[in-house]
């Protein structure tokens, strides 16, 4: 691939370079297999990290790339979770098809919502997403005949994955499954942000006023990415429901929306790996802190957040990118990237 690119005009390379697989990326994805060998007893945590990472990735596409802040993204996570749970409860426990159906539902709702979302920005947008999310939560709570209300959805029975791998106590199947889905969705997201559409999204984030002035249908773009993001969030929810065979109202809750936002910002919004890194750091830190000190762990999480903001602006990846670019610019001001992946 890259061999063929030698001798190509710089202008192509300039746009092609950021789409290349870096060694660090490949190393990262290989590292995601380590839990299988090094931390078998952490597999169930690993699977939930992967699920959260997927959720954060879905938020990154709208927040990090299109600049749409949402405080109600758990709505789609929860929709996916309940859809997957209900399908399994009513006799169809096949995970993959359940995943697809759940994602589809989330996508449809996301598309419907996107017509509202695209019209607003700033605080109004944040509060409207928040409001819609809370409304859905209350609806799910009062529709206890369907959702099981506050006790959570009961009687979710999953069939073995591919008819062969049971969801085991170790979370072995759970992690394999979550990781595989995360990786596939990541590939899609990666391709998406390196496409012309991805460029248009960055355009919307960089300057929503200019976009119409160059003939770009911003609203259409926003509707599209929002629906895609909803599908991914729905997948994350479905994965959680399937791997734990539990669904509760908290899947829709404000807390979850807020957490994923924090996770994404922590890792670095607008960077493909921001959400994933954020999920790993936040959840592992939380697991460790709360293991040591179940009552006051969030004190340390709080300090962590404050430290990151003050030391590494724009999240961990953003901060690092800044440091490195400052560092490198001292040696040579080689052509720098707007948004490193």
């Amino acid at each position: 691939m890259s061999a063929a690119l030698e001798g190509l005009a710089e202008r192509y390379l300039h746009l092609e370079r950021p789409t290349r697989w870096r060694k660090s990326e490949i190393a990262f994805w290989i590292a995601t297999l380590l839990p299988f060998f090094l931390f078998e007893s952490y597999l169930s945590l690993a699977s939930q990290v992967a699920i959260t990472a997927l959720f954060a990735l879905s938020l990154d596409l709208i927040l990090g790339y299109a600049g749409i802040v949402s405080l109600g993204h758990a709505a789609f996570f929860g929709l996916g979770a309940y859809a997957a749970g209900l399908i399994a409860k009513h006799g169809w426990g096949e995970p993959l098809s359940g995943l697809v159906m759940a994602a589809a539902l989330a996508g449809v709702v996301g598309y419907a919502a996107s017509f509202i979302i695209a019209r607003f920005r700033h605080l109004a947008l944040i509060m409207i997403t928040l409001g819609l999310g809370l409304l859905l939560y209350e609806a799910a709570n009062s529709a206890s005949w369907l959702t099981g209300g506050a006790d959570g959805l009961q009687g979710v029975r999953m069939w073995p994955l591919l008819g062969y791998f049971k969801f085991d106590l170790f979370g072995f199947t759970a992690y394999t499954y979550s990781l595989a889905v995360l990786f596939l969705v990541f590939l899609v997201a990666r391709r998406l942000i390196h496409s012309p559409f991805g460029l248009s999204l960055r355009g919307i984030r960089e300057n929503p006023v200019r976009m119409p002035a160059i003939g770009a249908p911003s609203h259409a773009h926003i509707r599209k990415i929002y629906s895609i993001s909803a599908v991914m969030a729905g997948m994350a929810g479905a994965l959680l429901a399937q791997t734990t065979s539990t669904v509760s109202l908290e899947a829709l809750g404000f807390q979850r929306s807020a957490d994923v936002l924090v996770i994404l910002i922590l890792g670095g919004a607008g960077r493909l790996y921001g959400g994933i890194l954020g999920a790993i750091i936040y959840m592992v830190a939380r697991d460790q802190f709360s293991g040591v000190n179940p009552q006051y762990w969030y004190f340390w999480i709080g300090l962590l957040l404050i430290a990151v903001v003050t030391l590494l602006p724009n999240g961990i990846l953003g901060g690092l990118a800044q440091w490195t670019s400052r560092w490198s610019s001292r040696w040579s001001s080689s052509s720098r990237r707007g948004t490193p992946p």
Partner: protein
Amino acid sequence: MLASLVGVLFDGFAYGMLLFVLSVGLSVTLGMMNFVNLAHCSFAMLGGYIAVTLMNALAWPFFATLPVAFVAAAAASVVLERALYRRLYRASDLDQCLLTIGIVFVSIASAAYIYGTIQQPVQMPPYLRGSVVFLGVNFAVYRLFLVGTALAITFVLVASLEYTRFGAQVRAAVDNQRMARGLGINVQRTFAITFALGSGLAGLGGALAIEMVGLDPGFAFSFLIYVLIVVSVGGLGSIGGSFAAASLLGISDVAGKYYVPQLGAFLIYLVMVGLLMWRPAGLFGKR
């Protein structure tokens, strides 16, 4: 029937006034500096705990605790403003969210560590308890007191914004920061002071809130949503807006729960979403 209507409206208004005192500070600071301070309710919580400590441990009278709550919260905010907030004025609002959420976590943990997770018990002085009947309508004494306080605060705020030099500077800074700078107003300083006053009000609100909604370490988080609703619906930087929004939300919430209880939980959010779709900048908002 009419009696109960009046009663319901009154209760709603009183609840709204509580929301107003809690949120007005955030509205002004957000409007002036666009600084997303999600830790606003942490200052409220601080005020609450100060009041509780003074009342229960030192047996202070309730009224004496209120100014202390105000001052304590204001002081705390000054410290934080110097230590942390100041670094992030020019940072992205996402970073501001992260910082202030971090502060919320720390404050909740600290409160739980110091005061325990228990629900703080408070005993109002007898003359603030129970209710008075007027024209066959039941008015809770404490709510009457709350409304009075809130109205007084509103009056003071509006008056000082309209008629003092500092108020003028604040208004200028809210309307247009660049221009204010041009006019030689020290926006940084103006903001710091406003921020302190706003947080102080939050602290006062925290102290006033205990009797009605209780106080435990969760407060800093659980009331954040309501405060944000008031701020966004009212419109950034607008005291009148916050007042209108708070009373509107309070009344619609209580009235809704009374007349259509099955909608009880939905109503406040429905109202908010509806209003924001109608006026994205809020009732009295410019931007």
